[in-house]
C-alpha cells in the first residue's frame, strides 16, 4: 500500500519536473525571440531621439515611503534627475513616524499648498500636500498610515500626467529608465495599458547618491542565489509571456501604467497583499471582460535596481508574503482560471501559474520528502531516486543557464569572466539547498494563508521591506 503510494508520488513528481523542463524551455525560447526583436529595435530606436521628441508623453512617478528618513532625500533627488523631457515625482508619505517628511521639507524647501484632490480612488485621509520651491515637479502627499497600496493610490490621485510610474522609494532607477520603458506607450498608444522593466539586484553594486555607478555581483551567497533567480524570472520568462500578451507580473519595484486604466479598475487593492500581481490580473480581467484590445508590455532592458534581503529571516518573510499574495489573488480571481472568456490569460497564463507556481511548491515539497524516504525504506530503487535528482537539479541548472545566456546576449551587464564564472557556479549551487528552502517558504506561505493570516505580519511595522519581485520568482 505504502509502496503504491510512494510510486505514485514518484511518477507525479518526475512527470512534473519533466513538464517543467519542457514548458519553461518553451517559454525561454519565446523570450529569446522577443529579446532579439527588442534588441533589433533598440539598435535603431535611438533613445536620444525620445528624449528630444515632443511626442514623448509626460509621466508622473508615484512612490510611497514609510519611515525612510535615511535614504529618502537621495532617492528623490535621483528620481528628479532622470533623463526625461517632462516628468513629476509624487511622493506619498504614509504616516511616517520618523523624520521622513521633515527631511524632505528641509532638503527641497517645501511649503504646504491647497491642491485639489481627485478622489476617485479611496484612500486614508490626506493631511496635506507639499510642493517644492526648488523643484517645481516635486510634490509630497502627506497622509495617514494605510499601507503601501493605499499610499500609492493616494499618489495616483494627485498625479498630473496621463502615465504613472509606480516605484518603490528605495529602488534605484537608471537615468534612461523612463525613456526605455515608455516606448511601448509611444509605439502603440491606443493599446498599451501597462509596461514593465527588469529588476536587478543592487547588492554588490556601487551606489552613489541614488544611482548605480558600477555594476557588480553580491558577495554573500544569499543575494547571489537571488540574482540567479531574478535572471530566470525576468529576462527568460516575462519576455516570453509578454509576447503572447499574457504578462502577469508588473513587478512592484517598477512599472508604468496608464493612469486612467488604473483608476478604472479601482487602483491597488488595499485589502490584499497581492499588490501588483493582483492589480495586473484585475486589469487583464477587466479589459477582457470589456472585450477591448489591449497590451501589457515587457521591456527586457534592465533599468531598475533594488536591494535584496541578506538574511534568511527577511527573505523568508518576503517569500512567505509573496506566496500568500499569490494564493489570495488566485482565489479572488479563480473564475478566470481555465476560462476561455479570458483569452490567453485565462486559458494558458493563469493555469500555468496555478500549475507551476502554486501547486509546484507542493509537488516539489512532496518530492523532496517522500522520495528520499521512499528510497531509504526500499520502496524505490536507486535509479528512480537518481532520476528524480537528475531531473530536479538538471532542470534548475539548465533553465538558469539559458537565462544567463539570454541576458548575456542582450545586455552584457556582467562583463568580467570572473563574474560570469561566479554566476555559472551559482546556477548550480542554487539548486542545492537554496531552492529547497524557497519551496519550504512557499508552502509555509500557503499554510499561513489558509490559517487566515491575510495580513502583512509584523513586517509592515518596519516599513516596506525590499519587495522587488512578485510571486513568480521561484520558477523552475
Amino acid at each position, binding site marked *: 500500500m505504502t509502496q503504491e503510494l510512494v510510486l505514485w508520488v514518484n511518477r507525479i513528481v518526475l512527470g512534473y519536473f519533466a513538464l517543467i523542463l519542457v514548458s519553461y524551455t518553451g517559454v525561454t525560447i519565446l523570450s529569446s525571440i522577443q529579446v532579439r526583436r527588442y534588441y533589433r529595435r533598440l539598435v535603431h530606436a535611438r533613445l536620444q531621439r525620445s528624449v*528630444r521628441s515632443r511626442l514623448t508623453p509626460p509621466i508622473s512617478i508615484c512612490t510611497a515611503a514609510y519611515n525612510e528618513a535615511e535614504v529618502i532625500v537621495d532617492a528623490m533627488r535621483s528620481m528628479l*534627475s532622470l533623463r526625461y523631457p*517632462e516628468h513629476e515625482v509624487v511622493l506619498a508619505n504614509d504616516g511616517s513616524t520618523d523624520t521622513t517628511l521633515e527631511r524632505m521639507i528641509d532638503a527641497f524647501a517645501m511649503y504646504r499648498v491647497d491642491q485639489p484632490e481627485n478622489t476617485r480612488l479611496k484612500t486614508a485621509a490626506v493631511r496635506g500636500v507639499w510642493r517644492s520651491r526648488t*523643484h517645481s515637479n516635486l510634490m509630497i502627499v502627506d497622509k495617514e498610515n494605510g499601507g503601501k497600496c493605499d499610499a500609492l493610490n493616494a499618489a495616483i490621485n494627485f498625479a498630473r500626467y496621463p502615465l504613472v510610474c509606480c516605484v518603490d522609494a528605495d529602488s534605484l532607477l537608471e*537615468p534612461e529608465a523612463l525613456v526605455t520603458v515608455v516606448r511601448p506607450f509611444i509605439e502603440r498608444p491606443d493599446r498599451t495599458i501597462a509596461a514593465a522593466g527588469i529588476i536587478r539586484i543592487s547588492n554588490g553594486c556601487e551606489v552613489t547618491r541614488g544611482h548605480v555607478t558600477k555594476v557588480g555581483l553580491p558577495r554573500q551567497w544569499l543575494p547571489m542565489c537571488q540574482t540567479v533567480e531574478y535572471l530566470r524570472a525576468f529576462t527568460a520568462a516575462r519576455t516570453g509571456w509578454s509576447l503572447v500578451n499574457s504578462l502577469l507580473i508588473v513587478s512592484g519595484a517598477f512599472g508604468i501604467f496608464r493612469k486612467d486604466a488604473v483608476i478604472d479598475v479601482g487602483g491597488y487593492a488595499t485589502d490584499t497583499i497581492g499588490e501588483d500581481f493582483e492589480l495586473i490580473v484585475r486589469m487583464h480581467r477587466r479589459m477582457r471582460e470589456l472585450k477591448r484590445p489591449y497590451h501589457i508590455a515587457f521591456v527586457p532592458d534592465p533599468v531598475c535596481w533594488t536591494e535584496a534581503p541578506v538574511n534568511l529571516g527577511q527573505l523568508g518573510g518576503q517569500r512567505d508574503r509573496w506566496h500568500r499574495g499569490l494564493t489570495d489573488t488566485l482565489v479572488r480571481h479563480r473564475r478566470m482560471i481555465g476560462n476561455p472568456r479570458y483569452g490567453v490569460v485565462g486559458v494558458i497564463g493563469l493555469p500555468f501559474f496555478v500549475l507551476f507556481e502554486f501547486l509546484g511548491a507542493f509537488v516539489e515539497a512532496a518530492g523532496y520528502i517522500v522520495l528520499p524516504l521512499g528510497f531509504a525504506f526500499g520502496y524505490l530503487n536507486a535509479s528512480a531516486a537518481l532520476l528524480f535528482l537528475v531531473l530536479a537539479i538538471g532542470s534548475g541548472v539548465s533553465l538558469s543557464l539559458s537565462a544567463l545566456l539570454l541576458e548575456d546576449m542582450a545586455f552584457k551587464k556582467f562583463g568580467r569572466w570572473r563574474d560570469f564564472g561566479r554566476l555559472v557556479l551559482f546556477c548550480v549551487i542554487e539548486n542545492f539547498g537554496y531552492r529547497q528552502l524557497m519551496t519550504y517558504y512557499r508552502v509555509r506561505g500557503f499554510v499561513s494563508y489558509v490559517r487566515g493570516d491575510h495580513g502583512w505580519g509584523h513586517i509592515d511595522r518596519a516599513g516596506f521591506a525590499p519587495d522587488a519581485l512578485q510571486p513568480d520568482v521561484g520558477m523552475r
Partner: protein
Amino acid sequence: MKVLVADDSMVVRRLVCARLAADGHEVFEAEDGQAAVDVALRERPDVIVLDRQMPKMDGFEVCTRLRQDTTLRSVGILMLTDNRGEHTLIESLERGADEFMSKPFSPRELSVRVRLLGSRQTLAQTS
C-alpha cells in the same frame, strides 16, 4: 576667460571644450551637477555652460545653488539643453540663466554667445 562646461554627454563636452579652447578660453569640465558646483566654487569661472539633465543634481538646481553664492552670483550661465519646450526655457530664465540654447546646437553660435556673455560680465564687474 575661464569657462566651465557641465554636461554628462562626452560628445557634447568634447565639442564645446574644443571650440572654447580654440577661442582661447581656459576650459574646465564637469560630468554631473555635483561636480559642476564643486568646480565652479573652486575655480570661479566667468561663464558656465550648463546642461539641464545631469545625474546627481540637475542643471536647474545647479543654477539656483550658484546664484545663492555671493561670489558666483554674477557669473554668466548659458543653459544648453535637449528640451526645446517653452516651459524649460521659462524655467531656465527664472532660475537665473542668462542665455538659453537648445540641442542640436551650432558651435559657432555657442562660441559667440559665450564670448559676449563673458564680456558683459566683465563690463558689469568693472562698472
